[in-house]
């Protein structure tokens, strides 16, 4: 039963454990249950990825065949997303009890975990479904849960950040819905494979163009593509640290998935890039995001905000990879999605450790941190190297493919720009490193974070190195995914 229903189980399990958690008043039991669920999902994701990377798994919800019912399809691309979401959740949930849950009203830990699981289920649902409207439903599940999670931040600004995100997210979601509606009106079906088959008949109509625009803009709002990114810094800064880690690593990635699916699976490369030349719009935006995001990150005074702006820049890389629309470039975009998830997740956890002990994430107040929290500071260093894209880290793999893609496409200037902008990352990472290592701490007592926080943090940070050297599960999957996406269109 488990074997044949894996695609359903991976989504349904967290969605059913969440209501069960409502009954679990005991804090530790609730926590263990949530962690067990995340691990179970990760196990399922791993077992599916093993199969799906070569032959996609199809699953019909309710036993109804594809155009009638809702079909699930797990291919290389979706299994990569499933791995990321469930993997990051598996690491973030066991992360020390202290920092994530402080802002939760007394006795409501179980509800917090329930929301977290819902968020995770929603994000995975988007990645796995083969039905366009189902994407919208799961988009909203994950969004609603993430608004709640962000609002749990300690400061009152978390509320306003969550509200802005809610407004932007709903506008984005509704745009997507409208785009889906137009696609539906053109083809009469909601199944992605079916649409891909029927859309070419009506491809060059105003409605197709606008539908594409709506889906891309809707996704871009949630992805925080450059001019639509305003909600992101506040949301990531004021959310509870563990939540920032989870959302930064997974939330935007899934929106990227939606856009890529929309462009490559539904509309097809030849239309989007051949006829419409969407790259003429996306490439400048991506370049702006890379440079503006990184430059803004350099001038931040708060670690979390710095990471948030760096996320905007990294999203620029992913969009650039997408806009290249060739094997290497798309692989680069997708693998950066995975690598950035690991790196950014790890770095946010580092910040969580720091705020837990130092009660602040202001860079100026963290002088000499390396003396007080040596392991945490070292984790920042390693994660930062990954962000820069130093060889043997995951970030290098992404950059390699992206530059390859740009060169293949003949965009030498852009290839150069990618490398140049990663130098900005050196500046903002190193600025913090210098504060940690070269300033004298006012108080030298050891404040190292507790083991239950350090272990998850270092696990993700170590993965940055692992994915820099052993790539079948990141770049391997990504290049299969890219091949699949390009072949489909």
């Amino acid at each position, binding site marked *: 039963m488990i074997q044949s229903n894996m695609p359903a189980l991976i989504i349904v399990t967290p*969605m059913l454990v*969440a209501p069960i958690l409502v009954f679990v008043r005991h804090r530790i039991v609730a926590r263990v249950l949530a962690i067990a669920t995340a691990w179970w999902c990760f196990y399922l994701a791993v077992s599916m990825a093993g199969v799906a990377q070569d032959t996609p798994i199809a699953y019909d*919800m*309710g036993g*109804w065949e594809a*155009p*009638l*019912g*809702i079909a699930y399809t797990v291919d290389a691309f979706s299994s990569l997303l499933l791995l990321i979401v469930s993997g990051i959740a598996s690491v973030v949930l066991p992360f020390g009890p*202290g*920092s994530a849950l402080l*802002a939760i*009203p007394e006795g*409501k830990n179980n*509800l*917090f975990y*329930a*929301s977290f699981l*819902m968020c995770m289920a929603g994000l995975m*649902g988007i990645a796995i479904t083969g039905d366009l*409207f*189902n994407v919208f*439903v*799961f988009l909203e*599940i994950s969004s*609603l*849960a993430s*608004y*709640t999670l962000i*609002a*749990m*931040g*300690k*400061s*009152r*600004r978390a509320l306003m950040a969550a509200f802005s995100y809610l407004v932007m997210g709903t506008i984005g979601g509704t745009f997507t819905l409208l785009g889906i509606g*137009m696609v539906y*009106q*053109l*083809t*009469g079906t909601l199944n992605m494979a079916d649409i891909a088959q*029927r859309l070419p008949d009506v491809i060059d109509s*105003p*409605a197709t*163009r*606008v*539908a594409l*625009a709506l889906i891309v803009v809707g996704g871009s709002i949630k992805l925080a593509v450059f001019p639509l990114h305003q909600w992101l810094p506040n949301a990531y*800064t*004021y959310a*509870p*640290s563990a939540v920032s880690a989870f959302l930064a690593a997974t939330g935007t990635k899934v929106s990227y998935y939606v856009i890529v699916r929309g462009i490559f699976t539904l509309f097809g490369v030849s239309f989007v890039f051949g006829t419409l030349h969407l790259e003429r719009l996306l490439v400048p935006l991506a370049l702006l995001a890379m440079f503006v995001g990184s430059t803004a990150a350099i001038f931040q005074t*708060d670690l*979390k905000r710095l990471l948030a702006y760096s996320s905007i820049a990294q999203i620029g890389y992913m969009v650039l990879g997408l806009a290249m629309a060739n094997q290497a470039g798309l692989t680069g975009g997708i693998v950066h999605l995975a690598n950035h998830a690991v790196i950014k997740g790890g770095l946010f956890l580092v910040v969580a450790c720091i*705020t*837990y*002990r130092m*009660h*602040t*994430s202001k860079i100026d107040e963290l002088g000499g941190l390396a003396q007080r929290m040596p392991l945490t500071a070292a984790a920042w260093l390693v994660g930062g190297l990954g962000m820069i894209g130093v060889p043997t880290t995951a970030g290098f793999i992404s950059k390699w493919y992206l530059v390859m893609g740009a060169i293949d496409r003949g965009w030498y200037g852009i290839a150069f720009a990618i490398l140049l902008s990663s130098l900005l990352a050196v500046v903002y990472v190193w600025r913090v490193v210098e504060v940690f290592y070269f300033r004298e701490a006012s108080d030298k007592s050891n404040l190292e974070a507790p083991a239950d926080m350090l272990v998850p943090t270092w696990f993700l940070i170590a993965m940055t190195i692992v994915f820099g050297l052993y790539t079948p599960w990141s770049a391997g999957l990504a290049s299969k995914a890219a091949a699949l996406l390009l072949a489909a269109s």
Partner: protein
Amino acid sequence: MPIEALLFVLLVVLALAIAHMRDLFAAAMLFSIFSLLSAGMFTLMDAVDVAFTEAAVGAGISTVLILGTLALTSNEERNGPFRLTPLLVCLGLGATLIYGTRDLPVYGDPGAVVHHHVAPEYIEGSHNIHIPNVVTTVLASYRGYDTFGETTVVFTAGLGVLLLLGGAARRRDPEEEAAPQATSEVTS
């Protein structure tokens, strides 16, 4: 042009009135009327189930919730400055969408592609299992998974509101407000 088109005009007028109204209570009233009217229009468009839901949700629950919020916030919206950019954005969006929809089927076109691809099979299938309401069949069986998602959405929202409003009301006093507590997280 059918009656629905005229009702649309009313609807847009109502929406503009809501935009213009500074008295939030009055806006809430108008909003309730807006919901009722749109529900009525859904009925005219044969979408009885949608109308049912919109009436129950829009005129009922949403109004009650908005009133509940207004009871806690101010009743009066402050006069803000006029802003040009939003207007331009909206006009641009409108123009784009009108461009995009101009080739789509006209209202009630029986030849539209949506009516011929999957829909007939649903109606057929619903008939075969003797459930007259096709919407129910599609909702609960063919696309039952969407509805599961929908239930989950409601549940998630419930969880969220419970987490946000479930605790004791926290009125922060001015001193505490003044203290910067941007991202600090307290130990223990």
